[in-house]
């Protein structure tokens, strides 16, 4: 076991942990990040939603929609439990710009306007930042005819379903759409591959070009962009979207998919690469319970000691919050709340699941929004409402009050809380 000291220890390698590590690193700190495996970021759709415009109607023109920052402000005003309200949204713009720049290998630069991307279900996903491979599909910016392209050999993506879903947005400023089918995935067995395998297949020389050619052959007259299943390679260095576009003769964009989605895996891989580039030491392993700022902890053959910690361990999927009869934070035993709203004496976290959920699936579910509570600098609070330790921070889905996977704010909260936690851990925050 090698003893190792660093300035900041980040636990968790999803978007929140990565932004925290990179923010502390940018401030010149020596950072070690411990990561046990892919978490909710890898399982995301790969586009970064910050705040959906809750007041917008589907019929409102896309051009008139509020900016993600304005939507976040409104959300914070309306939901005092939400991390945007607890952390404040003042730093959100700076945090987003930082994350966009750090992950520019995969992310398209933001311009402050919301992006609207087609989803495989025919719905439209609103986001603040999207991947380069998705950018040409932004319905607000798109001019001309969008061709939704299915693959003849593959039933996993229904171009007509996507097209008919998008057609309903035409009155709100969405593009004209047409569904076509390209003769691809026609070799034996190819059509039944999962998306990640198809993505790897396209990285091989000649395959992306062949797909582009197949798309070109079926394009309707006047097509301005081809919207395709999200399988355009896992490694941005393989330049699959660019190669397909060149062969097809028009811009190509991936639609957003449900996980496991290639853009989610691509984002996760890009995060890992960026951490290494930036000089963050990444240790693979799971931290044992206990530890904390200033206390040594053993992981991956190292005995790590850091005066500042950032917990970005996720929610149930990441293991940051667990429930075995009772809700708990397994690593440091931090108190977990489930929508108590800070009311004195109310402890909902001990209640059974039926008491913490509502019957309507689509409604907000307190049990699934459970997490630790933080102060304005993203430090987790103890039972007494006071930060547990002045150099212990929490970021991402571990922070409760939002349903990160389902309310459209998950990755936005990851970036904001990661940014605040990373800067706080680096000693840059106000107090």
């Amino acid at each position: 076991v090698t003893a190792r000291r660093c300035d900041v220890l980040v636990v968790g390698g999803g978007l929140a942990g990565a932004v925290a590590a990179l923010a502390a690193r940018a401030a010149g700190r020596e950072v070690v990040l411990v990561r046990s495996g892919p978490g909710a970021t890898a399982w995301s759709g790969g586009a970064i939603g910050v705040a959906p415009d809750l007041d917008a109607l589907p019929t409102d023109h896309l051009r008139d929609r509020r900016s993600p920052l304005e939507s976040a402000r409104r959300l914070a005003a309306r939901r005092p439990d939400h991390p945007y309200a607890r952390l404040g949204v003042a730093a959100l713009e700076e945090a987003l710009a930082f994350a966009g720049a750090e992950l520019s290998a995969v992310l398209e630069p933001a311009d402050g306007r919301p992006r609207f991307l087609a989803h495989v279900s025919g719905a439209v996903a609103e986001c603040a930042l999207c991947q380069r491979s998705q950018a040409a599909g932004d319905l607000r910016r798109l001019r001309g005819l969008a061709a939704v392209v299915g693959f003849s050999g593959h039933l996993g993506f229904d171009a007509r379903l996507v097209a008919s879903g998008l057609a309903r947005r035409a009155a709100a400023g969405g593009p004209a759409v047409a569904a076509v089918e390209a003769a691809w995935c026609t070799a034996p067995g190819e059509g039944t591959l999962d998306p990640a395998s198809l993505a790897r297949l396209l990285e091989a020389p000649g395959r992306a070009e062949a797909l582009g050619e197949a798309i070109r052959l079926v394009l309707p007259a006047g097509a301005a962009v081809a919207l395709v299943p999200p399988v355009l390679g896992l490694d941005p260095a393989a330049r699959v979207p660019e190669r397909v576009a060149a062969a097809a003769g028009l811009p190509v964009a991936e639609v957003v998919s449900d996980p496991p989605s290639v853009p989610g895996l691509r984002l996760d891989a890009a995060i890992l690469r960026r951490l290494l580039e930036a000089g963050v030491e990444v240790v693979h392993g799971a931290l044992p319970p206990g530890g904390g700022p200033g206390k040594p902890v053993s992981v991956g053959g190292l005995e790590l000691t850091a005066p500042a910690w950032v917990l970005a361990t996720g929610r149930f999927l990441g293991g940051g919050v667990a429930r075995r009869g009772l809700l708990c934070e397994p690593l440091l035993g931090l108190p977990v709340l489930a929508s108590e709203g800070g009311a004195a004496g109310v402890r909902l976290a001990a209640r059974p699941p039926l008491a913490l959920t509502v019957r309507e699936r689509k409604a907000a579910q307190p049990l699934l929004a459970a997490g630790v509570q933080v102060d304005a600098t993203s430090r987790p609070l103890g039972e007494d409402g006071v930060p547990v330790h002045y150099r212990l921070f929490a970021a991402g889905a571990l922070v409760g009050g939002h349903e990160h996977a389902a309310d459209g704010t998950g990755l936005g909260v990851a970036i904001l809380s990661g940014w605040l936690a990373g800067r706080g851990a680096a000693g840059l925050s106000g107090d």
Partner: protein
Amino acid sequence: VEFDLIILGGGLNGLGTARDAALRGLRVLVLEKGDLGGGASGSGSGWLRGGPRAFAAGAGPGDDPLAAGEAGVLEAIAPHLVSRVPFLRPFASRDEGDALASGAPRLGAEALAALEPGLSPGLLGALAHDDRAVDGPRLCVANARSARDHGAEVRPWTEAREVVRQDGRVVGVRWLDALTGESGLARAPAVLDATGAWAPGLARRNGLALRLRPGKGVHLVLAGRLTTHALAFGAVDGRALFLAPRGGETWLGATEGGFYGDPDDVEATQDEVAYLLEGAAALLPAVREARATRAVAGPRASRFEWGPGEEALSRGHALLDHAAEGAAGLLSLVGGQLSTARAQAEAATDAVLRALGRPAVACRTREVALPGGETPADAAALAAAHGIAPLVAARLVARQGALAGEVLRLADDDPRLGLLLCREEGILAAEVVHACRHELVRRLRDLRTRCRLAVGGCGGLDCARAAAQLAGRELGWDAERVRAELADLLEVGWRERRAVLDGAQLAQEELLRGAHWGVGR
């Protein structure tokens, strides 16, 4: 439209009678307000020889000759839907053992520990019993398909609004299609009410009297096979419960209690879940660590009796004639159990023929195989012939029997249908398409019982959207409808999981909610 017989209710009583009556040459219409087997038939335990009740004091496997005979018939006409289940009933004291059924073979403590090493220490031995289990939902589908093959018209998602009478006789039924809003009057001189838990409400709406003992049964589904044998045991209050491996899961059940709520809205409660888990964990400690994936609740309806508790109620059936209430030609088939459903249907069909004044025609449901039961299917051979994984073939054969070949030929003709939607349950795109074409599927949620779509621990993570697309293509849904059906499917699953969300299942739920964020918005 003219029929000889209109059957209300698409459970096993209704569908079994439809098949029987169709085989005897009657023109039959079945009206079911929801999906086939949506009541007790689809949510029962499925035991053919008593299950945990076979060990009750004074009981014995030979106690119910009708059930014993019917189990044999079912094995002959639908072998793929019946599985042999060796049952053990451990006991901890001599007194407990002596109080159980005396006829069953007994095992000593050592033999029991060797067979089921995970049991709590301190057990003295066990009684053994050889039971059979039937796949209730699939049995309903097989009966529906058989009825239709023999000329019956089966209309799921079509509600019987009113039994129309004239001069003291029934003349037909007004129906309403729940999905299209279409309505009409179907005419027939005989109507059989087989709506089970819904019968009292239906009778009330038609100015008739029908009393039943309504109940509710809850099963808990745990991920993985926790035991090799089915185990019978007593809960804290002595109620007979069971824990049995099924497919890749373990089923734990069943609470049974009176239920005077809305039969359309039956859900497991926290107390029922905890009661089952506590009871089972006392016998098998691993239950505490197991991942509960859902709680299946369904309504029951037994014959009316004043006095006896839920467990002591008769499982027998009764045929009620409403002629004295000014509804000659209207019969109600109430109560009964899954294991004797074929015999119940035979009795009901005999009664219908008498009510119609028709000559008696011999019943043929003992001899004619149910669809899929015609010839034995060889999963290994199918796997090899069609190039699919053995597990996929085995699961498919368990659901489809001899029709598995019909499903796999779809994928041979169109290789895209070889897409595996669920590795765990072995659901091929071809099976979804096949169900949409041949198994009376009208909604996406119907596929839960057709091919176990989205009922596993994952809740439909990978399969739900792809299946919605496939069903949409087959059934001509537009994008709006596809999304609505997907939202509905997820809603049903959510309601089954809500009461058991804990441990790893919560991580799964987080994943699922993220995956389907766009659905229903």
